[in-house]
């Protein structure tokens, strides 16, 4: 990793929103980096800040959001960059795939119009060339009969096809980095498997880097080389996917992995849950945010917030990480 300059580099990234009483912190200082062609999964519960983190990486946070820290794309600072420059980067360099393909496709435009629009926003191309490239891209995301689909409207497509079209739109201008925010959450399980396989084959064919946001460890585990687990706006554990999933160091990651329902379990077995609920984004105690729900918490945990400490295989933010004795 050290040999190659990172494609995108986050340092102390914070996203806050002004609220009636002070500010609400969605992301509270995240450091991440991603090499060209690499893949990173960001996992967390709802409200952990993963979506805001993803939006900030593409300069898409809602107007009014207060950004802190830095996001560098190939060394270029994106926090506070000119809107015109951000527009040039979006689509052409950084593609974004939204969660709900029903809502993210314009209902009144044909699939073809939306595909060519994404391309022609960045390159002056004759209509015929843009159309040919759209057909090619639809075939690449494995949409059957692309010529017919080009003339159709989103409501004439199934959910899985819509998500493929959305991915095709994100890829039209050939980005080096694709950020996918829960791309399979709105789909059923069989369709989800197809979309994940598509991401894997696209990465192989196009060599793009991928940031995949998900609440589902299995989705990330199958697709990403490294993983970052977020809790209450911070990364609590990161590292190579296999190491994090097989030997989690942070009690939260451990609990998350244990909560995945298993088919081998006897039918009457209770589902494993994590007791309690994540803290409200507005009210953050001084200590570790997970301490109130943590079975291993000691007095130090509620008093002092643990920093992300590098380990042999990754990094963890915990005073008493698992696998270091005492557990």
């Amino acid at each position, binding site marked *: 990793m050290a040999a190659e300059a990172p494609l995108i580099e986050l340092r102390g990234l914070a996203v806050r929103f002004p609220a009636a009483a002070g500010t609400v912190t969605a992301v509270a200082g995240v450091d991440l980096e991603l090499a060209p062609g690499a893949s990173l999964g960001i996992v967390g519960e709802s409200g952990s800040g993963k979506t805001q983190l993803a939006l900030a990486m*593409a300069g*898409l946070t809602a*107007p009014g959001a207060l950004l802190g820290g830095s996001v560098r794309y190939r060394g270029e600072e994106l926090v506070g960059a000119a809107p015109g420059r951000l*527009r*040039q*980067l*979006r*689509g*052409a360099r950084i*593609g*974004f795939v*939204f969660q*709900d393909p029903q*809502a*993210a*496709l*314009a*209902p*009144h*435009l*044909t699939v073809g*119009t939306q595909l060519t*629009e*994404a391309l022609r*926003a*960045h390159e002056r191309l004759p209509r015929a060339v843009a159309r040919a490239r759209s057909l090619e891209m639809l075939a690449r995301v494995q949409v059957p009969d692309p010529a017919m689909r080009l003339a159709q*409207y989103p*409501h004439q497509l199934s959910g899985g096809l819509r998500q493929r079209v*959305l991915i095709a*739109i*994100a890829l*039209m*201008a050939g980005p080096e980095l694709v950020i996918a925010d829960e791309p399979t959450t709105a789909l059923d399980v069989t369709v989800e498997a197809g979309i994940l396989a598509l991401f894997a084959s696209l990465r192989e064919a196009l060599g793009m880097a991928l940031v995949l946001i998900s609440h589902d460890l299995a989705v990330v585990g199958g697709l990403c080389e490294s993983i970052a687990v977020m809790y209450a706006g911070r990364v609590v554990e990161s590292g190579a996917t296999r190491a994090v999933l097989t030997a989690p160091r942070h009690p939260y990651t451990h609990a998350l992995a244990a909560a995945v329902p298993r088919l081998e379990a006897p039918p009457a077995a209770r589902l494993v849950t994590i007791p309690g609920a994540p803290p409200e984004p507005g009210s953050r105690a001084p200590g570790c945010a997970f301490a109130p729900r943590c079975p291993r918490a000691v007095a130090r945990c509620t008093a002092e917030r643990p920093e992300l400490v590098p380990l042999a295989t990754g990094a963890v933010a915990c005073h008493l990480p698992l696998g270091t004795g005492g557990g």
Partner: protein
Amino acid sequence: MAGAPAWLPPARATRVALGVLGAIALLAVAGPFASPWRGDELDWARLAMSPGLDGRHWFGTDRLGRDLYVRTLEGVRVSLAIALAATLVSLVIGVAYGAIAGFAGGRLEALMMRVVDVLYSLPYVFFVILLTVSLGRSPATLFLAIGAVGWLTMARVVCSQTESLRQREFIEAATAAGVPARAILLRHVIPNLAGPVLVYATLTVPGVILIESFLSFLGLGVQEPAASLGNLMAQGTAEMESAPWMLLAPCGFLVAIVLALGTLGDGLRDWLDPRGR
């Protein structure tokens, strides 16, 4: 309907409405030539005569013996022209102004909408009197006066619609694909405004005809001997008990126009929505 050309809207009611409006427009332009009378000609032998074939006054005559068939059609022509022109102006200015304000949001939107509020609060009649005094009395002035105020409501409707559209995910997705703001406004926002804008525009036409009649009644609009639906109805109202046809002829046309426009607006809205196609 088999055999109908493909470019026509599919709903039958819409086609009928389109046909009715076309027929009224054609009648308003060509109809007066079918009568032996002119609009300002007085038939001293037949004053306030009820409709019939006598003297070929098909809609009867008014108190001065003028042929109501010709005068009503001339009135339809004037009123339709003013209404369509004023609606078109309010459509163009209102949609552009409202969409830009709503899409920009923040301070620019607040500033633009406060300007609309200030214009709203100007006393309308006073404003029209000022215009007629400074520019002279003519259908053009009337159209300017109505158009200048008509776009305000349209701008408000469009602005609030645009604001709610802006938060839709497909607009955000277009932004994420790097589509420039101008293209988003033209291709994603404005086409989605078609529904409320069309419905509101079809409501504006009868509204403008009523304002025109009110201004004509005050002596600021279309003046005798020229006819408009507004001043014909004002005269007809005065004779309502003794000669109801003087009111019924212009009213009938107004009702037909308003009904046909309403149906047409609904039909066009459905037709423009790709989900209904």
